[in-house]
């Protein structure tokens, strides 16, 4: 099968993300990339755990008094839901329905944007209310680096998926762009999974001191 071929609902393969050699390579390469990303976040988690609550003096707020759990819970729900909407988008991609795929992807983007907005609000809240900044302590540096790296991944994902939607808005699905949508959704799931760990390790474990 060639990537440029015009396909119809009937000729669309069952696994469009893996039906050319280029697509297979992209699919596998992206999984490996996510493997590397996992180690990257693991290193950031380790750094955070080593530096949690490490502050120069007692005037600094520690994790259990700092975190705003209801807010991050809402953010978590937004991101988890966005993972679900991206699954629906891929469902429609596999059924050769570009229009419905785009609708679900836009929903994914909106939820991701909401998450990012809450995170920015959260950060500014910590900075202004608690003077918990990137430079105020080792704890602050580790917190903003770990959570900020994740936030930057979300922001990159938003730009990426937006680009894909705009670029392919007119031409619909083919075997050249189907794997692109697919790996973008893989990426989106990945940052969702990372967030589950951040919510657990940073926020929930932060509450118990």
């Amino acid at each position, binding site marked *: 099968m060639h990537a440029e071929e015009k396909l119809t609902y009937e000729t669309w393969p069952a696994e469009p993300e893996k039906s050319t050699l280029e697509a297979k390579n992209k699919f596998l390469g992206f999984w490996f990339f996510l493997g590397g990303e996992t180690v990257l976040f693991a290193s950031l988690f380790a750094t955070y755990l080593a530096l949690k609550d490490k502050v*120069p003096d007692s005037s600094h707020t520690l994790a259990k008094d700092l975190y705003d759990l209801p807010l991050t819970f809402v953010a978590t729900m937004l991101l988890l839901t966005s993972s679900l909407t991206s699954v629906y988008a891929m469902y429609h991609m596999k059924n050769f329905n570009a229009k419905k795929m785009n609708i679900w992807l836009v929903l994914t983007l909106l939820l991701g944007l909401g998450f990012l907005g809450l995170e920015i609000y959260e950060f500014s809240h910590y900075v202004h209310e608690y003077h918990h900044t990137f*430079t105020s*302590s080792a704890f602050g540096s580790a917190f903003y680096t770990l959570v900020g790296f994740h936030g930057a991944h979300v922001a990159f994902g938003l730009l990426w998926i937006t680009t894909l939607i705009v670029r392919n808005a007119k031409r619909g699905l083919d075997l050249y762009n189907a794997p692109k949508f697919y790996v973008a959704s893989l990426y989106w799931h990945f940052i969702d999974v990372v967030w589950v760990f951040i919510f657990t390790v940073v926020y929930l474990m932060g509450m118990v001191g």
Partner: protein
Amino acid sequence: MSTYAQKKGFGATLWDYLTTVDHKKIAILYLIAGGFFFVIGGLEAVFIRIQLAVPNNDFVSAGLFNEIITMHGTTMIFLAAMPLVFAFMNAIMPLQIGARDVAFPFVNALGFWLFFFGGVFLNLSWFFDGAPDAGWTSYASLAMASKGHGVDFYVLGLQISGLGTLIGGINFLVTIINMRAPGMTYMRMPLFTWSTFVTSALILFAFPPLTVGLVLMMFDRMFGSNFFETSMGGNTVIWEHLFWIFGHPEVYILILPAFGIFSEIFAMFSRKRLFGYSSMVFATVLIGFLGFMVWAHHMFTTGLGPVANAIFAVATMAIGVPTGIKIFNWLLTMWGGSVKFTTPMHYAVAFIPSFVAGGVTGVMLASAAADYQYHDTYFVVAHFHYVIVGGVVFALLAGTHLYWPKMFGTMLNETLGKITFWLFFIGFHMTFFIQHFLGLWGMPRRVFTYLPGQGFETSNLISSLGAVFMSLAVIVLLYNIIATSVKNVRVGNDPWGDGRTLEWALPSPPPFYNFKQLPLVRGLDAYWLEKMEGKKGMTPAEPVGDIHMPNASFLPFVIAFGLFVAAFGALYHMDDKAWSVPVIIIGLLITFGAMFLRSVKDDHGFHIHKEELMEDDKDKGVKA
């Protein structure tokens, strides 16, 4: 599309190499750039040995000495050894598995340019207020206190070139998994391909911790964070862990491909199947796995406690087992073989005792209690030069001679090759053997001079004289390269006459599509099998048909260049220069803009048509 056979002017050739996505040309780029940095790192080593040749020397100042040793280590590991390893992986691995290119040719080119700009950036530090001076390990306690911008060059340069290595690793993994020719099962892959595979996996999991470590140090030095600032709650041991979680697998990233090259050489020039092929594969994978379990043996004296030290000591010693398996397999490959002492074989045979010596001191160092005595002495310097020079550099020199005809279509002179070998072999042992004793006698590493009357004079002088021999060896090698390139006597498919694997079934150098028809692989040492049955070449696994090839692109160069620009901005950010932030933004715009272009512009590649392939054969007078 038959233009590729025509002669081109200098400008066109340059543009060709700047935009190439062909793995064979990228291999040549890696070889040239890696060779260049190898010479720079070698000169730095010569300066070190001149300074230490006599006591109380003032050839260089103490500060400059720190910069030289830091840059020697960093350059040799990241900018010489790794790219040279990558050169052979790129040149040979796709041919060995019967592929027409790597899985991601564009990413392959991007990987090279990232490495190249990272390396250039790091070395520019010599011209901008000083090179890094905190040692190649750049421990945070030293690095944070380092004045000037040296350490910033280290952090940003390695960050850029590390990205290149990481994507290169992913690329090789996917290539080996997805693009093997029909019949090329995993257990028929040549050992060099196997070692490329395991090495790539190590790169994938080892480089992200380095990335994080470098990010933390960059944030600390340039953007005011406090990861390593103890007065603000920071902890410098975090750097040590992150660095060595990367750094120990890194030495296996270097040595496993060396093992792979030697495995090919032993089988080729003993004209025998590699002894214990399956156990070799098993040992390679096991070494790769254990490589991640031992990082803290670099930190025995950091104070992790006896439990941690004991665990890491035992894990470290365990690596001796698979390595021993390999050594015996190589010996038994030669046993009863019809051994031909070519230049590559010289290196292979010399490698065994040299590397075993490094391995033995490795086990000595692995004993945590004894390590307190060896730590930070010349004993350690001798140990790691025995494994890295006696293992990796020997393999790179052997590989250069072995694969030169496949990469350039002409043979390096064998006599000069053997002269290079003997000079290098003698020089290497002369320089480093005595350093074991210097270490045991108490000479600390990284000191810029020593006093007379401590018993270090003669040994240091001998060590420095050894460096002269190694320098001569490199000069002979360079002369050899120039002389053979000028003569340019063309060679056929299998110039050594003993080729066993697929790459030797192809013309030297191979056409840009490698295989007109993908070969049918019928066993280990696929080409040897066919030769033994009296056939001239491989049996094709497919009829002649259109070949799909990737387009050349200038974007990899641009993407890497953008990061190079942004790095300058970040570097001067700590000086509160007004232009630093705009420069960061411009650089990132170049990079992300080029990535955006790559994303939105379709790149379907092109097809070489069946008729052109036939035509191509007629031009060369070869029957289809």
